[in-house]
């Protein structure tokens, strides 16, 4: 089954981090990505630009509305994702727990709706 691991973290804390902390984090993500790849379960992954770079679009009553910023202003924002293909939820959860984001933010695990 395919699962999306959605990474939510505090952007402000990320920006306030020291160079050493940032390097350490990037290295941790690098190692995680490699582990996921080597396990042969990676179906896609990306880091997202911060939510200040987000634009939100909604069409209501035939009129489109374009707003600056993310859909919801929350402390923790979607910052990236891993799509993995594993046998079941427990396997997805154990990969989510290894993701560095699980220690500094949260990882939401969502099964992909197969069409």
């Amino acid at each position, binding site marked *: *089954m395919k*699962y999306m691991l959605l990474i939510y973290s505090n952007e402000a804390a990320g920006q306030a981090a020291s160079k050493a902390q940032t390097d350490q984090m990037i290295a941790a993500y690098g190692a995680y990505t490699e582990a996921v790849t080597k396990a042969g379960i990676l179906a896609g992954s990306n880091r997202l630009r911060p939510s200040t770079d987000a634009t939100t679009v909604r069409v209501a009553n035939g009129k489109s509305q374009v707003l600056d910023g993310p859909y919801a202003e929350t402390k923790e924002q979607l910052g990236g994702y891993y799509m993995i293909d594993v*046998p*079941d*939820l*427990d*396997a997805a*959860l154990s990969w989510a727990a290894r993701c560095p984001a699980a220690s500094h933010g949260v990882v939401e695990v969502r*099964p992909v709706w*197969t069409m």
Partner: protein
Amino acid sequence: MPREDARETAEAVARRSYGKLIAYLAARTRDVAAAEDALSDAFAAALGDWAAHGIPDRPEAWLAAVARRRLIDTARRRRRGEAAAPYLQLIADELAELAAAANAVPDDRLLLMFACAHPSIEAAIRAPLILQTILGFDAATIASAFLVSPATMGQRLVRAKSKIRQAGIPFRVPERAELNARLDAVLAAIYAAFAEGWSDPAGTETRRRNLAEEGIWLGRLVASLMPEEPEALGLLALMLHAEARRSARRNAAGDYVPLAEQDPASWDARLIEEAEALLTRAGRMAGEIGSVGRYQLEAAVQSAHAARRLTGTTDWAAIERIYEALLTITDSPVVAINRAIAIAETHGAAAGLANLDTLAQDARLDEYQPYWAARAGLLARTGESEAAEAAYDRAIGLEADPAVRRFLQERRAELRGDGTGSA
């Protein structure tokens, strides 16, 4: 064969094998709802077929085979919607496996219970889900036991089953690293079912009384399937100890009898002995692991109370120590209240009361009857009658059981009768 015999046999097999058949069908597909539908079709088919052709040698295997065919048919019809291929493959694999196993239906109930009590399933629905899938309780029965509207309970059960399938919750005994936490969820669900039933001491509500029996039945099942897990044995010991005192909680007139005033001769000695043997076995295993779990400790408290039957006294110091240990692993206000009650016995009512006072900040206790009853009892013993009356009033107002309410009202009235009432 007469139709009635076929019906009786089908019903007997249904009672005995329901959970096993659901587990067997659902473990291959993760589709509990489809398994339920297929099995209910198979039962309907059995009524007609068995009346016409006689009861098969292995009724359970017959039902499994018919239900499995129904599952495959359903999957074929659904082909467009979800990916039916892996589903069909699973069932095909299973067919081969089953043929090899000479028609024996494997027992996957433990796997089903782990799926139902998975951490991604809402905690409050785990016990109802186990009652429905393992025991075949309908939503209305479960709803009335848990004081939820049948429609709401039905929806929540449907949602939970859908989540098992859609989120890919596995039917598997978790890995060692996770086993303790996961097993704890299974045991908690079973204990919740038991507790719902046990909280009807009058035994007037058959459905709830059955729930306590079914809880014990599930506890026996898990203990037999995981005999090396001390907590599984601990939970069973705890439930058996509680069950042993079920009828002692009421006298002949239907009045509430608190534990301290119960006649040990009215306890069920057979259940107590079984509980003690389980607890001893669990203790030996826990000793090897080097840690004792929550259910063993709670059972140990019950065991200490039950010892009065042999010694004539209650070892409150031991009970206090066990609650102390429980508090370090559960951080539960209920445990803290019980510890305060034990302290009142070992160090006097004032010490117990001082201990209870430290809990007063916990908002959860506002509607927790045992807290107010304990408080009232200790206040009465320290001579603070006015405060005791107020606490009794809170306890009485929170109690749903008329016999316990009456008991509390009598205790409250005694405050004045003793001449210690407020001036």
